């Protein structure tokens, strides 16, 4: 384990940003989001959860995929560049780090989504272990250790000191570039980190959702859950907005749309939500007629459909953003609880 030798995080940030674009949690208009670091930005490493998760950096809410020039009978396709500057994202929590695995299973599966792939290739993920989990957190339910995130590099902050450990080759290489700012941590220090981690885990065990049970969500019981009468009760108040979807680190449904700029067509993709009534609507009909079905789809996908295709990996990382943000206080934790009762 390494430690950062200065107590000024800005020293580290300016060193990183001298090499690569650096994204950190910054406060913008009163809310914390991942933004490009600069001296003038208000960095909020203390914030537990950014409103939008870190997926925005790899799968942005909107991105142009290609362009078309139309002239007479002809169409010319403008394909975007195949290169991208490397970037660093600092301060990713364990839940978000896990979400990249969930997204990778979708976007990096054949045929590979090159837009996502390029961003993943370019991005170095530096995680920050949690120190102050809150009542909406339940990452432990999905086997995630908030104090031992995935990612290229993991950091812990204990008593104002930043500890650092590279976890991947990419992380090692990048750590090497920052060697002048890093030193080996002492055994006592490592013990302090471990002690803090234990304390945090103890807190997590006390949180209201710590004991949610998800073992019952297995593929063989898919139709049983699908036909559960509980859905009728759970969906009732759902507004059909996309808040849960858009703050979710693992939701990855998207729409592809064309925009006529007046000088050509831009084809872009943007986040979409299976909660939206338009999502599956076709000229000829609508397979998911009511909000109940749309509501069910989202949770069935996260708890059953996705795991069935991905060796039991749930498409929920327990970050609790939906718990905090749902306008009507309905969320996946309540769904797990209600369905689990059966």
């Amino acid at each position, binding site marked *: 384990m390494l430690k950062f030798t200065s107590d000024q995080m800005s020293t580290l940030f300016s060193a990183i940003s001298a090499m690569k674009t650096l994204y950190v949690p910054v406060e913008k208009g009163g*809310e914390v989001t991942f933004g490009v670091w600069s001296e003038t930005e208000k960095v909020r490493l203390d914030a537990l959860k950014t*409103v939008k998760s870190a997926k925005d950096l790899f799968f942005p809410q909107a991105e142009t995929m290609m362009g078309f020039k139309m002239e007479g009978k002809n169409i010319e396709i403008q394909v975007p560049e195949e290169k991208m500057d490397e970037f660093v994202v600092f301060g990713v929590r364990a839940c978000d780090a896990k979400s990249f695995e969930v997204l990778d299973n979708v976007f990096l599966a054949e045929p590979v989504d090159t837009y996502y792939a390029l961003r993943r290739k370019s991005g170095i993920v530096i995680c920050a272990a949690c120190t102050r989990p809150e009542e909406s957190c339940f990452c432990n339910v999905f086997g995630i250790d908030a104090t031992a995130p995935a990612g290229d590099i993991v950091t812990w902050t204990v008593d104002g000191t930043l500890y650092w450990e590279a976890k991947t080759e990419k992380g090692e290489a990048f750590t090497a570039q920052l060697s002048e700012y890093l030193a080996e941590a002492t055994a006592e220090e490592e013990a302090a980190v471990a002690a803090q981690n234990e304390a945090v885990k103890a807190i997590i065990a006390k949180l209201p959702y710590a004991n949610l049970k998800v073992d019952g969500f297995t593929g063989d019981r898919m139709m049983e859950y699908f036909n559960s009468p509980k859905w009728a009760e759970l969906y009732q108040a759902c507004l059909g907005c996309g808040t849960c979807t858009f703050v979710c680190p693992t939701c990855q449904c998207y729409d592809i*749309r064309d925009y006529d700029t007046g000088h050509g067509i831009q084809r872009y993709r943007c986040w979409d939500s299976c909660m939206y009534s338009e999502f599956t609507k076709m000229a000829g009909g609508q397979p998911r007629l009511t909000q109940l079905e749309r509501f069910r789809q989202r949770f069935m996908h996260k708890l059953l459909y996705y795991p069935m295709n991905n060796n039991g990996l749930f498409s929920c990382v327990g970050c609790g953003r939906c718990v905090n943000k749902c306008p*009507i206080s309905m969320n996946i934790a309540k769904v797990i609880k209600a369905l689990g009762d059966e």
Partner: protein
Amino acid sequence: MQGIIEKVTELLDNGTVDRVLAWKAGEFSYDRTPAVFDKESGLYGLVYDSFCVNNLSKYLIEESKKDGKVLVLMKPCDSYGLNMLIKEHRVDREKIYVLGVPCKCKVSVDKIKATGLTGILDIVEEGNDIKVTTVYGDTTLDRKDVLCDKCMVCKDKVVVVYDEKIESDETAGIEKLDRMAEVEALEAMTPDERFNFWRSQLSKCIRCNACRNVCPICSCTKCVFDNDNTGISSKANVDSFEENMFHIVRAYHVAGRCTDCGECSRVCPQNIPLHLLNRKFIKEMNELYGTYQAGTDAEAKDPLTAFTKEDAEPSVIYNR
């Protein structure tokens, strides 16, 4: 609360109503979800307390399409929205039994959290004290300090449409703030300051549509932004223009109809002060066309469907 339960039970038992639209307690001591109860389900979980903040009026659009009569618990400020829905023929009044319930202002969990509290395990309300238990320790807050913003400028505490109402002499004991103060503060800025303010706010928008979907006025069968034939449909803010556009158009579409219930700002995951857009219209219309409160009744013409020959010219804006 007890009075409400008794009344609801009575009306359900004597067959006056078939269902009850109210709030249901959640997992924490502060999360409340709108829910429909009936005889079969019983009233288990029905709650009415300082955290029952949702405006239930919009649910009546769907609820009043169903067979039978639905009882709704109606807070004073939400009843304006119901009047608008009645005015615009969006609900079937015959199928609704409105039980007015008193409100002594709602408590905002976000504000409790904004005091730095996290890991909340329990919140207990005792008089003016809000006692919060967290995994990191216990604290007592003054209720006045954690009231919802919208309650600080509440229109009044009178249910404007009801079949029956439950009275209470409890008051929040707060001094109401000037509803237009925030708007005025913005007006006092230079255009560039205002521009920067709104850019910093609207650029946060993630287009989740929560503001639209929660709004009792935004009840179009199909929203212009979802309709590919309008030429302005969009799903994400691909350009800063679209961030502005969505909110300008939304505010404009509800102008003269918005009851200022404040739900849009409450549900915004990015805490964009959307009410300031609506309130600007309200302020402007009040000043230029005479005081008007949407939803006070279900008949009056709103300012944008009325006129007088002596109305101010649009130049009042650029002559300011």
